[in-house]
């Protein structure tokens, strides 16, 4: 198939995990939330050096929030379920 067979668009979605960048210590080498997530949806943003939710694939299970040593992570119920 040629490349033009699959045009795609980018859709926005409100994600359930918020990182308080003032508290997040990922820029000091912490990756606790990134490692805890069963779905591997958190990553360190290379521009800010802070953690962020990169994929909207959340089980709202909370290890990221419970294990964060800085209290920087908060998890909401995903909008579609709220």
């Amino acid at each position, binding site marked *: *198939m040629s*490349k033009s*067979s*699959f045009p*795609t668009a980018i859709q926005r979605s409100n994600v359930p995990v918020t990182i308080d960048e003032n508290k997040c210590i990922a820029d000091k080498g912490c990756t606790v939330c990134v*490692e*805890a*997530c*069963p*779905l*591997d949806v958190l990553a360190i943003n290379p521009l800010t050096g802070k953690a962020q939710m*990169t*994929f909207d*694939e*959340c*089980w*709202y*299970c*909370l*290890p990221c929030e*419970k*294990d964060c040593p800085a209290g920087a992570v908060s*998890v*909401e*119920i*995903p909008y*579609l*379920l*709220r």
Partner: protein
Amino acid sequence: MNTIEHAVDVLVIGGGTAGPMAAVKAKQVNPNLKVLLLEKANVKRSGAISMGMDGLNNAVIPGHATPEQYVREITVANDGIVNQKTVLAYARNSFAMIEELDRWGVKFEKDETGDYAVKKVHHMGTYVLPMPEGHDIKKILYRQLKRNRVEITNRLVATRLIVGQEDGRIAGAFAFDCRTADFYVIKAKSVVLATGAAGRLGLPASGYLFGTYENPTNAGDGYSMAYHAGAELSGIECFQINPLIKDYNGPACAYVTGPFGGYTANSKGQRFIECDYWSGQMMQEFYHELESGNGPVFLKLDHLAEETISSIETILHGNERPSRGRFHAGRGINYRERMVEMHISEIGLCSGHSASGVWVDEHAATTVPGLYAAGDLACVPHNYMLGAFVYGGFAGESAARHANEHGQIEVDPAQLDAERQRVWAPLQRESGLPPAQVEYKLRRMVNDYLQPPKVTRKMEIGLERFDSIRDDLEVLHANNPHELMRAMEVHAIRDCAEMAARASLYRTESRWGLYHARVDYPERNDADWLVHVQLHKNAGGDMACFKRPLEPYVIPVDDQEKTAYQRLRISSTNTPEAVAP
């Protein structure tokens, strides 16, 4: 992207519940074995119990229950379709496992005399042991993995088992790293499959792909891998469907609130089932009530005393699915003030709750030499977390003994090339379909065509749709290794959907209440169908079903007991449709 080869003695795939236990027990059989625990997420927080567990659902504790009584209960709860030897092997080792977990530091509820505080939830016996402080269980398992020197690798996604060309014996597994897409060839003398349920099969009513009952990391990878390795699967038509808090999609009722006096009620606040233990028959009654004029169904706690409700909240908001409190807060729901709306879950495959899984014997051996299975994925009906630990133990011990006695089979280079090409293809295409979109459509079709009550023609149409989605798999496109993980999961989900349809079509009767309610074959037919339905890849490479006769029961079940689970409805609510509004 690199190709990395690694050789071990015992490979355990899945680091949730059964997997860590298997790895520890394999090392305890022979500390010289190289045992690798391979995990798709991170062993510290993976699987169905990533946030702990609030209780044991099937504790067989002397003085409260006997193994024989438990085998009878599960035989009846699963409408006679059990290999009793496997259930008995669980039951006989249940208490020893509780004591071992207790020594490891898992905290179970005890009464003032130090005896285990077992509660009655099942229809006949008494098997529920609360763990109000069960949130630490993963940490305790992790400590044992370190103590026993188990090698651990995280973020590796297993895609296929490696099977010897000549004797069909296990030789390891292929996997890839979901952050780098590096391809792994892991050679092993024996393999334990402990990848959990097929929890991303049906689409939750919310439409959110990851708002599943099961941890959505458990996408059915193991069911697909076992099938392609030539293993027999069993009872796939006995779907998992659970009664859950609507939209939140987490459990709440029977095991935790039941012993405190909470119960499942209709919109009038009336109890309509005698027993909240999850069974197909219970789900059938739940479904009837949900669809009736008395629906929907609610969890009723608002009649309980303040201190009781506080205790329930402490447990429910601290274990297993702790975000539940936030969900209720967001909706303005307080257990004290009103009943909480419930709904049924999407369908899944999970022997931990129902009976759908990879066929195993009482040593956790599958039909593939050298391959063992345990946990939600292995067909030992209603096995739950404690069953995962017990069978994880069996699987680890069996796998260690097999590795002691057998050499490593060479990996066929052609098999390796073909799998690497299949796995890397979505990354190498310049464009294609996004995995999430294909997954959404596939799982929406699962809901449309497979969700009980099952209809023959609908399931046939479903099979046609799943077949055409096979073509879509060939044009999946991944932008990065993470999306590649989702793409390969869609492959597994599609296999599970086809298995679910074929096994359901094969069994031309109704059984297990809602789990296999066939509208055009409404009666249970013991004359023809008191058998296991097995599914495998046949010699021609096609998905095929066949009957496997029941092994003679080792624990007889009397006629009165046999029908116990068919009498769950409370007689005064027998005809919900007829009740005046």
